């Protein structure tokens, strides 16, 4: 609980926080005289603060009597929680920067694109990267990979895992010189061991599995990412009753959302692209229809721009829409070679640390969210929306949007 929820006058609260007493546990660990000296207030005031702190920590432990509804939080607390949430790096630092540091935990992220654009590659990369140990700036978690299409190829996972281990070794070697960090003991085989792979062959199996996930993850608390490749496949054959399909899908989406919040894990749903018939012409859109598009918190669209692969943030409550290029190499997802060379693999690891480390990191998701309402961005959004369908935008407008917005996103991260 945060110190500044204490019912204090604003001047004392300000002094308290600027002296570094941000949390109640910090306050309650000192004596009133120490507190008075550190915060530069009278001892009576310090005593009062300690009394309040004790009271409110007591009340928050006895089931939150302060909140009107059980489980309700204020936005400030949630912001702090969000800042402290780790993100899963994509191994492509350009992509990480538009995502605010990587795929965020507690969220459902949908990634869609044409066949061969690299959806499965991103899925595999994330299931490997979630296991990067904490010492290297990762999550040290495990992954669940739900394969509905049969595209999960173990030889490819092994290849990406080997590259990831090599990068980590290089990184710890680099760390040794500076911090005397522990040697990372991770082998490609361990990485494969920590991916729970489910092969789903029909939509009934898919629904059953999603219902089972809660129990499975309760038993395997280390799971930090759930990847579904793809959510779509079994739902695109003839469903006579489209209403029923919509209901089943939104129920599934809700369950994923619950899992993400309950276990603080990232859910990544890969989606296909389809043509949509509107106003006499065919347009490109992510599959499963309009109601589905409300189901995910974040939506990333992958597309070709010339000979380069690009990712575009189509929907996100906290990130500005931006696009970044990436490539798929034999070692996995990486920065596009033509983009600036500023980020080596090493740097992307250190960057991951600064996101996860609590103190020196300014909240990127929050501030980029504020920034996205800058007039320039809004005008470009509006222009897009008015001229062409939202779904077609990344393919057609990408070039123009990207020039404006990548620059703003990257300047924030740096």
């Amino acid at each position: 609980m945060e110190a500044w929820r204490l019912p204090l006058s604003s001047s004392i609260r300000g002094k308290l926080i600027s002296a570094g007493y941000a949390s109640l546990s910090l306050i309650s660990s000192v004596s009133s005289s120490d507190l008075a000296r550190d915060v530069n207030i009278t001892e009576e005031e310090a005593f009062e603060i300690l009394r309040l702190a004790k009271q409110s920590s007591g009340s928050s432990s006895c089931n939150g009597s302060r909140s009107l509804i059980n489980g309700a939080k204020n936005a400030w607390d949630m912001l702090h929680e969000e800042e402290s949430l780790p993100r899963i790096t994509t191994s492509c630092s350009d992509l990480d920067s538009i995502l605010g540091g990587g795929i965020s935990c507690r969220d459902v992220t949908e990634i869609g694109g044409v066949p061969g654009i690299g959806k499965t590659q991103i899925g595999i990369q994330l299931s490997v990267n979630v296991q990067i140990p904490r010492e290297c700036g990762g999550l040290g978690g495990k992954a669940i990979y739900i394969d509905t299409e049969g595209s999960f190829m173990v030889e490819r996972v092994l290849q990406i895992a080997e590259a990831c281990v090599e990068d980590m070794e290089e990184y710890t070697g680099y760390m040794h010189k500076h911090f005397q960090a522990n040697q990372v003991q991770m082998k490609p085989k361990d990485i494969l061991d920590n991916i729970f792979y489910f092969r789903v062959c029909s939509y009934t199996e898919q629904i059953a599995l999603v219902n089972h996930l809660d129990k499975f993850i309760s038993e395997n608390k280390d799971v930090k990412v759930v990847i579904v490749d793809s959510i779509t496949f079994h739902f695109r054959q003839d469903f006579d009753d489209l209403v029923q399909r919509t209901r089943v899908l939104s129920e599934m989406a809700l369950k994923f959302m619950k899992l993400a919040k309950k276990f603080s894990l990232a859910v990544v749903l890969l989606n296909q692209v389809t043509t949509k018939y509107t106003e006499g012409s065919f347009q490109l859109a992510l599959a499963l229809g309009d109601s589905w598009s409300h189901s995910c918190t974040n939506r990333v669209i992958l597309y070709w721009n010339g000979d380069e692969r690009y990712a575009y943030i189509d929907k996100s409550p906290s990130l500005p829409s931006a696009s970044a290029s990436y490539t798929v190499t034999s070692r996995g997802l990486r920065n596009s070679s033509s983009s600036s060379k500023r980020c080596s693999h090493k740097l992307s690891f250190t960057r991951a640390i600064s996101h996860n480390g609590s103190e020196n990191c300014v909240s990127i998701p929050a501030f980029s969210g504020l920034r996205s309402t800058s007039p320039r961005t809004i005008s470009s959004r509006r222009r897009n929306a008015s001229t062409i369908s939202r779904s077609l935008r990344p393919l057609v407008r990408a070039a123009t949007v990207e020039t404006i917005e990548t620059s703003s996103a990257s300047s924030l991260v740096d």
Partner: protein
Amino acid sequence: MQNGKMKPENLLRRSTANRKLTTGCEILDECLRGGISCDSVTEIVAESGCGKTQLCLQLSLCAQLPISHGGLNGSSLYLHSEFPFPFRRLHQLSHSFHQSNPSIYANHNDNPCDHVFVQNVHSVDHLFDIMPRIDGFVGNSKNRLPLKLIVLDSVAALFRSEFDNTPSDLKKRSSLFFKISEKLKQLANKFDLAVVITNQVTDFVESSDGLSGLRIGNLRYLYSSGRRIAPALGLAWANCVNSRFFISRSDDSIGKDRSEKDESSSSSVSRRAQRRLDIVFSPYLPGNSCEFMITREGICAVQA
């Protein structure tokens, strides 16, 4: 569902045994990292006369090779919707196949064609009629090699005549694609089969909606015989396959060779035109290409 739960490591152990089907050509295998993958649907896209049927015939013979030779030690089922089936060419290939593998066919009477089962398919409904029976066909393999390869040559022929270009028909068509693909993937997963599907091409027409020019995969444009083309059946079908390979004829060869009219007639032997196989997309292969020729003995890659 509980049975489906496994760790990829278990899969890896299974895959080291052998999960790739050789194409019968070392160079081509190298390009494809061992050949056609099992438990996966591979599509071969090409205009007629490029050699997709040749490649499929060769694969259906190779499936019976022992695992030590890159085969799957299994039989193959060839579903053909393009008529007539090139029996004479299969026979010719099997003859040279027999000769080039003397260690396996010690007995002169062994015929490689014994392990290739051929079934004609003349409509989508017919295909749906056949597919459920494949389960029984695999299970009932006491006296022969287990089924390890299904070839569908070609999927486009099933759809090209029956459906109109109206939105409702297109919708119905694409839901059928997913149904076919789901069933084939189920079979592939259940019995660890390799599934190979061929597809035709359409000429690329610069149309107003601009979607037929949508880029899918590693190649920006697909060219064959000097024309820009697009795989048939569109985007929906592209979502149904795991890997897509594209075979094209090289431009300079069309002047010399105009006999592409009847690709299935086995009498026109050993065309020397150069053909190229490109990997359009695949979850385990990088973008790559390989040139090959079709000889009397079958497909034979040319070292770059």
